């Protein structure tokens, strides 16, 4: 019995690492750039398909794909903000109006990216096997790729946290999150910082996609599910807080793995119920102010 509980808990932690990484990206895009990027999951899907293609056609190690897919998506995100969202920001009168119109624009992006993926990779499920050797962890057996995924997710999260906390650019990003107007007056190039933030969000999505593709099947319509999980984790952990995203991610991962253990078809419904309760009880989240 205890073995089973440990099993389910470790499973939840492994799942939670990925959830956290996805949520950090979204948190950055919404917390700083004020874009609720509903097409976030689509970027994850692109990362996953990119890795799959590189592995199947060019025999490139998925861990090397991290440094290929990540930067490509970073540039894509940066360019998107420099073009689309910058002009939306200019044309909308208030920040509320911008949030609404950018959300709709992201829905448009979702349809565009998803359908390009369907036409280029097909609608069926793809997958490959990498590091799927079993590892014995205190009696419970796990595939090595899932442990590698968790390690990378935590590593990327810590690196990014240190980047935000210790570097000059990180300080500018935090300032922009707190008060864009004041940050602008203090000499922060606000448009540039927002675009960088959006790019970093896409970078995280790309990393998450690469790591996901190592353990889970990949398909063109997988994005929305991850976007919704990311939104729930962000709300759970508190907007704009990286430790919050990790706490929220691990909580949701553990709950997800408990519910899936009891009844697999209800895990998404359980996420929604948590989300709805959370919005009603504490909309600012665990680490929120």
């Amino acid at each position, binding site marked *: 019995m205890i073995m089973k509980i440990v099993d389910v808990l470790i499973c939840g932690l492994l799942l939670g690492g990925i959830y956290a990484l996805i949520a950090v990206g979204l948190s950055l895009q919404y917390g700083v750039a004020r874009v609720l990027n509903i097409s976030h999951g689509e970027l994850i899907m692109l990362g996953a398909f990119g890795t799959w293609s590189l592995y199947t056609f060019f025999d490139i190690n998925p861990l090397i794909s991290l440094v290929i897919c990540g930067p490509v998506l970073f540039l894509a995100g940066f360019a998107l903000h420099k073009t689309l969202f910058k002009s939306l920001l200019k044309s909308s009168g208030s920040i509320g109006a911008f949030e609404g119109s950018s959300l709709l624009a992201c*829905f448009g992006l979702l*349809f565009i990216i998803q359908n390009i993926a369907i036409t280029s990779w097909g609608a069926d499920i793809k997958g490959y096997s990498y590091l799927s050797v079993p590892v014995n962890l205190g009696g419970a057996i796990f595939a090595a790729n899932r442990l590698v995924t968790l390690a990378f997710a935590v590593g990327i999260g810590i690196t990014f946290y240190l980047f935000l906390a210790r570097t000059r650019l990180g300080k500018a990003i935090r300032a922009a999150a707190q008060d864009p107007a004041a940050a602008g007056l203090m000499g922060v190039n606000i448009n540039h910082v927002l675009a960088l933030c959006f790019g970093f969000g896409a970078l995280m999505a790309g990393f998450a996609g690469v790591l996901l593709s190592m353990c889970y099947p990949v398909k063109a319509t997988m994005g929305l599910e991850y976007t919704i999980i990311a939104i729930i984790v962000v709300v759970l952990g508190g907007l704009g807080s990286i430790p919050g995203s990790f706490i929220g991610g691990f909580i949701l991962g553990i709950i997800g793995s408990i519910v899936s253990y009891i009844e697999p078809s209800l895990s998404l419904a359980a996420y929604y119920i948590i989300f709805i309760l959370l919005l009603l009880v504490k909309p600012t989240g665990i680490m929120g102010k």
Partner: protein
Amino acid sequence: MNISTVLTKRSVVGGLVILILLIIFITLPLYAPAYTVILLTAIFMYIVLTVSWALFSGPTGYMSLAPAAFFGVGIYTAAILGMKLPLIVVIVCGGFFSFFLALLVGALTLRLRGIYFAIFTFGLVMLIAYLLLFWELHVTGTRGRFVIAVGHNTVYYIMYGNLVILLIVAVFVRRSKFGLALRSIGENEDAAAHTGVNVTLVKIVTFAISAFFIGTAGAVMATRWTYIDPFIAFNPLFSFMPVLMAIFGGTGQLWGPIIGAAIFAYLEEFLITRFPYYYMLIFGIILVIAILYMPKGLVGLIQKWRKGGGVV
């Protein structure tokens, strides 16, 4: 020419145009081919969804992504009650179930402002779909249901009647004090509350009225589709489409959402038949372009053109 004669002249012409349109649409099934009737039913459905959405979200600025939930409730009502009760009763029931769901959801969530409300309402759609799927797989042991089929002329007339009633309600809401209260909420909710508007009540009631018409539209459409399952009934597309159509048309005027829905519904039919694989792609591109270049929709574009004396 003083203002009052201009107004009356305009309203007489407007009234005549509306009367002629009413008569054309009533007599249409007598001489038009079946395809036209079916296409018009679909267009009317989208107009109902869009105008209902804009009834609440237009003036208040709360972006609801719940239409698919109310639409699905209507569809499931038709599927469950369709065999047992007369059609009109089923459709009204579909409206009322949506109405009560909206009352409940509204009471729980209309405290949430901005983007959280949009996410919450979208989550609601998916939650209902997953719970229904679970129910069907584990309790009833089936997936999907059959809905009793009805002739397409009947479907057309009911959808048409639904649309006309909705438009009357929408005009009434716009012109009444109630509509003024709604707009004041959109402008500044705290100020509206201070001037004596019962903010919560106004929001919830409007949200529920808009849900009623979406629910009836769902119940009518279910009889045309004959087979449904949770992901057909609670398709998130029915949440996005009304938003897009209303924004494309512009929510500042009542005819904005109508025009937006009519154009898009026709465009959808056109794209699906000609480019079935690229339909959603083109749809996404139009969505992005519409938001970028016409933030106030067709209405805004036309008003700008009128003001600018022909120069856009």
